[in-house]
């Protein structure tokens, strides 16, 4: 399947000389939900802005549906809806005018019925004549989403859609993402909440210092979550693993004072009792025993630390 977005060797150096994107290569598949994770200042917004045409990439190429975003911007931008990170709205406009304006701006014929449907689906219908300034933050965010959906885009960018949003609205947001995905909309979202990525993403990308340091199927990542570690604090330091323990793929840590055994909790036989039997047969004594499970959060944190 052809990627709906193809990013090739993209770099961005801001006028200040700061390199915000460092040789990004990424292909987004049609109708997938792609979650972009990364610490503050990693370059998530910059990457999205480059695809949407808000910042110019310094070098590299981006295509959307096979068309170059610079030369064929009319074609590519029509396909894209963007909900920016910041809630910037015209304070004195009504919900209805601001959403209708967006539809026109993106080259679509006025369609009040569609705008009504969109507003209803976001529980904004009773607010249609309210001025933006009269809305709460959560409502404003929904209006931003309505604006982005007003021209029926094939691709939706959500830059931190659930930042500062209450639990209920977050759930609604997830539900909306699922619905849109079922309708065939490709969704790229950024988030700081790992559980959000776990909940709704098909693939996860991690960006750090402008570099894409990991792109992985969520399922593959989650499988790593099934991995658990058994940590044995030894009585006496061990320099080598005895040959009859080779099958267990043990690791020595902490100057020989710790033995680590990795196992899969989803398997029927974890091999723990066999290991313990082998250890006493080899007369390796231990003081303490504990287990450790890596979460997506750990993976994320260690990735982000590693690349520093």
């Amino acid at each position, binding site marked *: 399947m052809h990627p709906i977005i193809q990013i090739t060797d993209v770099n961005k150096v*801001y*006028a200040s000389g700061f390199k915000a994107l460092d040789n990004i290569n990424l292909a987004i598949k049609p109708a997938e939900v792609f979650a972009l994770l990364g610490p503050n200042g990693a370059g998530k917004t910059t990457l999205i802005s480059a695809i*949407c*045409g*808000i*910042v*110019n990439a310094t070098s590299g190429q981006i295509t959307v549906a096979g068309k170059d975003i610079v030369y064929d*911007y*009319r*074609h*590519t*931008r*029509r396909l*894209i809806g*963007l909900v*920016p990170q*910041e809630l*910037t*709205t*015209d*304070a*004195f*406009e009504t919900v209805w*005018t601001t959403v*209708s*304006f*967006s*539809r*026109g*701006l*993106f*080259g*679509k*014929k*006025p369609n009040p019925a569609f705008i009504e449907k969109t507003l209803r689906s976001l529980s904004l219908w009773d607010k249609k004549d309210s001025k933006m300034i009269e809305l709460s933050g959560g409502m404003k965010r929904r209006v931003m989403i309505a*604006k982005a959906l007003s021209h029926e885009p094939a691709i939706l960018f959500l830059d931190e859609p659930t930042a500062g949003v209450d639990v209920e609205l977050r759930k609604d947001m997830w539900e909306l993402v699922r619905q849109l995905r079922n309708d065939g909309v490709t969704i790229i979202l950024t988030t700081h909440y790992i559980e959000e990525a776990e909940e709704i993403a098909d693939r996860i990308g991690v960006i750090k210092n402008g570099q894409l340091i990991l792109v992985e199927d969520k399922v593959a990542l989650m499988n790593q979550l099934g991995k658990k570690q058994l940590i044995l604090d030894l009585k006496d330091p061990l320099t080598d693993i005895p040959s009859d323990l080779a099958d267990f793929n043990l690791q020595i840590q902490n100057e020989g004072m710790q033995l680590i055994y990795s196992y899969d909790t989803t398997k029927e036989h974890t091999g723990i009792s066999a290991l313990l039997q082998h250890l006493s047969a080899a007369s390796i004594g231990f003081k303490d025993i504990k287990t450790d499970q890596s979460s997506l959060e750990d993976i994320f944190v260690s990735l982000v630390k590693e690349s520093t």
Partner: protein
Amino acid sequence: MNRYAVAAIYKFEMARTKRTIFQSIISPVISTSLYFVVFGSAIGSRITEIDGVSYGAFIVPGLIMLSLLTQSISNASFGIYFPKFTGTIYELLSAPVSSFEVLLGYVGAAATKSIILALIILATAHFFVPLEIAHPFWMLFFLVMTAITFSLFGFIIGIWADNFEKLQVIPLIVITPLVFLGGTFYSVSMLPPFWQTVTQFNPVFYLISGFRWSFYEVADVSLVTSFFVMSGFLAFCLLAVTWIFKSGYQIKR
């Protein structure tokens, strides 16, 4: 051509006027009326006629130009500056619109507004002085040309400005003096020779002269000269705006 986008911008901007009706329409009407009272009545009682036109009537074209110029500039510059200020510009930048279409929407709306305003002022003036328009076609032609040219100029200022001071400084320190020194309240022939020469370099002088000719067939310079200066300034603004769009100056990061 994304005509829905041009229409959307145009409608949006016109709606903004409706909301700020006082600021956009009423206040220039009031200030123009004050000019009539102060200049027309007070001074008009001393200077009875210039070039065979009563003083009150003589200043009408200049007063209309004063409002037309300042309103065109402020409407257009504010229109494009405001989204930059609030951040809603992200939507324009990510939309499938060309710079030219954005310009068409903003400049079109700004020019429309100031033309409406000019016609309202013309009607207001009619209450104070008897008016006759010798060449209605030319009157409208100058009105429309000026509105478009200075809306374009305002658009450029709005793109260039990165704070409210910059937004206001050009209209304040450049345009207002040019209009006042461009023969709104007097005929240039009334000035000493030195100032007559200085006036030759004031583009607004040609505008007012041409515009006044369309009313009373009296002018300080020939219609052809006015026409060419006008077109020259329009061409200059078009070139400037093209250059700005080519270089992406101040809009995109």
